[in-house]
């Protein structure tokens, strides 16, 4: 297809988008949802399995209380009502990564309903309605071998790893989100970011999109102003925060071009491609899927004790949005500065760096400056850049103590990222400490003055700015390890000039 996509500005001028998000979060419980198998990521294929999570004949599920508790806490953090009585249901469909050929999920009786999550976009608060939060089990992972696409069609062999099968999975579904206009992609991203932070603050999941412990499906539709909402598509395979934003935008552009051409949108599942930023149709289903939901007869209904729920509610941690407001005040940041900290995903990192002894300003400078740059270059999350908040605080301490200048500090940082040890160790091992021995420096200064008599004369005659060349020469002979400010002062002093 060689359709030229319309410009984004024109699209949002003509159409109103409605978005919706379905997010799956793998809980970080020690054991799986229905059995005692461990849940850690990784592990040789099919080693974390038992008769229950393999769905062997005769095996039965028993619900994991920790997973139920985590789901209720997520629901409470999202301002949901917690059901006094609810049930699990079977979702029936055949797929080899699902050992029983049905998934134990929840259908018309979810554990948590009707909540909201406030997110900040461009300084505005947008309230996202939460339709439901329910608990289900994850499937195994299928690896299709031999096909061109890595998908089941065309594959010569399919291998299944059931380690993931039965890991507790929480599904969080928003209500439709209309009225966000041109900001729809950013709202989608802000929501997933906020949701991730909320769940992380609860300590119930590591919510890592790249490892699949947080997965997101994005629903998008367009309608003309004043008309009914359009047909929506569901975009899957959205594996990063950036992709959430790109997927909405890309789908808005695609749908607009279809509608502009007089076409209509097909309700379908689409697949997001990280490389091109496009979506393509998922596998078309010849017939509508009928999951034949019915209450799971192997499990008794859930009736969370109201006193227990109240206890869980009272024990919720400070949620990210409130925490951010508090921190912003403590750090004395403007709204805009705080927003950039949040956007960079640096709140916790800066907080930890401050806790390790750095000033908020210095911590912010490192994380938003040098470290963000490196994260972008290498395409990793800021937290995974390879430097801990403790290291950053230590590094700043060396700078503050005059042992490192900015340039040397950056070199030391390289060493930390390269796994050479702590900043102090690297400084010592590599001999990077600022030369502060005035005797040695004076010798270098005298050498530079002697080697550049013309420049020295200029300085003596009052052209103080010319001293820069002498500073450069000293820095060169000391291999950058001198403190430039001290060098400059020494030069002016030797030449009898006031700085």
């Amino acid at each position, binding site marked *: 297809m060689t359709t030229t996509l319309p410009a984004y500005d024109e699209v949002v001028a003509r159409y109103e988008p409605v978005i919706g998000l379905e997010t799956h979060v793998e809980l970080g419980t020690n054991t799986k949802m229905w059995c005692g198998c461990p849940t850690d990521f990784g592990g040789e294929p099919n080693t974390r399995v038992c008769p229950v999570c393999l769905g062997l004949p005769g095996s039965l599920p028993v619900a994991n209380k920790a997973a139920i508790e985590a789901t209720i806490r997520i629901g409470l953090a999202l301002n949901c009502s917690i059901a006094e009585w609810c049930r699990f249901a079977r979702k029936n469909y*055949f797929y080899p990564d699902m*050992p029983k050929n049905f998934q134990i999920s929840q259908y018309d009786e979810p554990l948590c309903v009707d909540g909201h999550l406030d997110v900040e976009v461009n300084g505005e608060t947008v309230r996202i309605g939460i339709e439901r939060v329910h608990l289900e089990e994850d499937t195994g992972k299928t690896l299709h071998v031999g096909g061109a696409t890595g998908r089941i069609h065309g594959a010569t062999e399919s291998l299944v790893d059931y380690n993931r099968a039965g890991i507790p999975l929480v599904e969080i579904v928003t209500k439709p989100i209309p009225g966000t206009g041109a900001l729809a992609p950013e709202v989608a991203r802000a929501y997933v970011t906020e949701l991730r932070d909320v769940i992380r603050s609860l300590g119930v999941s590591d919510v890592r999109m790249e490892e699949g412990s947080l997965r997101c499906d994005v629903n998008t539709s367009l309608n003309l102003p004043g008309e009914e909402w359009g047909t929506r598509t569901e975009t899957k395979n959205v594996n990063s925060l950036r992709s959430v934003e790109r997927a909405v935008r890309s789908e808005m552009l695609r749908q607009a071009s279809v509608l502009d051409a007089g076409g209509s949108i097909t309700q379908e599942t689409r697949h997001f491609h990280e490389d091109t930023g496009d979506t393509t149709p998922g596998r078309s289903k010849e017939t509508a899927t009928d999951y034949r939901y019915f209450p799971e*007869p192997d499990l008794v209904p859930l009736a969370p004790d109201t006193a227990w729920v109240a206890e869980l509610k009272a024990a919720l941690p400070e949620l990210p949005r409130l925490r951010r407001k508090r921190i912003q005040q403590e750090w004395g940041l403007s709204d805009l500065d705080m927003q950039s900290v949040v956007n960079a995903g640096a709140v916790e990192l800066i907080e930890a760096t401050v806790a390790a002894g750095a000033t908020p300003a210095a911590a912010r400078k490192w994380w938003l400056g040098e470290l963000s740059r490196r994260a972008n270059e290498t395409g990793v999350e800021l937290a995974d850049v390879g430097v801990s908040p403790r290291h950053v605080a230590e590094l700043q301490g060396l700078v503050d103590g005059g042992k490192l200048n900015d340039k040397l500090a950056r070199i030391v940082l390289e060493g930390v990222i390269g796994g050479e040890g702590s900043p102090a160790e690297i400084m010592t091992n590599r001999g990077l400490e600022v030369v502060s021995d005035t005797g040695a420096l004076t010798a270098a200064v005298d050498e530079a003055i002697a080697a550049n008599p013309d420049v020295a004369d200029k300085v003596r005659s009052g052209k103080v700015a010319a001293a820069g060349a002498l500073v450069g020469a000293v820095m060169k002979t000391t291999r950058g390890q001198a403190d430039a400010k001290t060098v400059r002062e020494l030069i002016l002093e030797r030449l009898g000039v006031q700085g």
Partner: protein
Amino acid sequence: MTDLTRLTAAEIAGLVATGETSAVEVTQAHLDRIAAVDEQVHAFLHVDTEGALAAARSVDERRAAGEDLGPLAGVPVAVKDVLTTKGVPTTVGSKILEGWRPPYDSTIVERLRAAGTVMLGKTNMDEFAMGSSTEYSAYGPTRNPWDLERIPGGSGGGSAAALAAYEAPLSIGSDTGGSIRQPGAVTGTVGAKPTYGGTSRYGLVAFSSSLDTPGPCARNVLDAALLHQVIGGHDPRDSTSIPAPVPDVVAAAKLGASGDLTGVRLGVVTEFTGEGAEPGVMAAFRESVEALAKLGAEIVDVSCPHFQYALPAYYLIAPSECSSNLARFDGVRFGLRVGDDGNRSLEEVMSLTREAGFGPEVKRRIMIGTYALSSGYYDAYYGQAQKVRTLITRDFTAAFERVDALISPTTPFVAFPIGARTADPYQMYLADLFTIPTNLYGGPAISVPCGLSEGLPVGFQIMAPTMADDRMYRVAAALESTVGTFTPPAL
């Protein structure tokens, strides 16, 4: 010398405990009996000779070491092939699991082993426990020891026939709509369906999860109670298992055996004692009711108006659950796989496997259930059936406000000839007409032999409130004390 196969379980346990015989001798006697008659009866799908003798030796060693053995130590047990047995084939009477050796023991089997009973092997059954004659076994029918041309009931025909043929003194069955009680009735043996949740379903290959109940089978009431006590009780691996102790069924059976039912009120279910049952069955039932009255029981008529809808409700609920439970049999992870020649798609292989692996009755129920759960039909079928289930439960609760237990014949007819009802599924389904309401309610019920009709056994059913399993044992033992037990003609 005593024929060890003719003894009761209690007697065998006593002889083993005192050292008058050994578990190995008892086991060998039963293995010999199986070798002699099972070619005719076909009660067993798999005889675990080595495993049984090893278990028996272990019991003898423990006794010799002075260990305190349980009340059934050294007693052989036959286990319906619906329960998983570690390393021992478990087929559920289906081709789709042919050759499957489970990597784990069901809770029931685990408890049987812990109690020192000796598992002889796995008994024949209708495929996936769907049937009332054992004719739907993929491995050929079991024959009734009373008349080898007749069915032994089903689905647990193997477990019942093994008792009647003296191949085992005890066996385990599972009852979803009558699969313990109806075979018990037509083979002249005792079969008890415990309260749902009173016995663990962990390791019971599911047919209909909300109905399946494993339970004891024996040749007399006390033996059934002893077995019930051993296998019953809470199991944390089954979420629907009731966290309460097993009612004292052994004490109740002993109390009943004294023959005094003074103060016990029994309700004859009027819906099950009119037309619909054979005259010979009704005659034996009526005589037994009179016998119970003579023992002091007060007999009243009780109407349970919704029982007439139990059969249709059951044939929506059970197939619905089975359509989902049996989805896992797809050839991917275990059991049969057909058509995997490298050229066929996964869907084709799954489809060919299920086509070849399931028999016609299983397919029929999967189709009915799939339909009943479909979008647009759910409310009219599955949803409606669940409402009927609630009404039936209310009939039971209302009845138990008036009486201690309900009574009826177990099944409307005595053992029918092999082949007589396979052509018409509905005629087959009628065999469970009187047993199904209990499963929908979840309470316990027992079938105890009460007489003969044209030389074939008739079963008497006692239904009790949930977790009042002891009550039915008391009445059953009282009835047994007056009508006696029934011995089939020699094979």
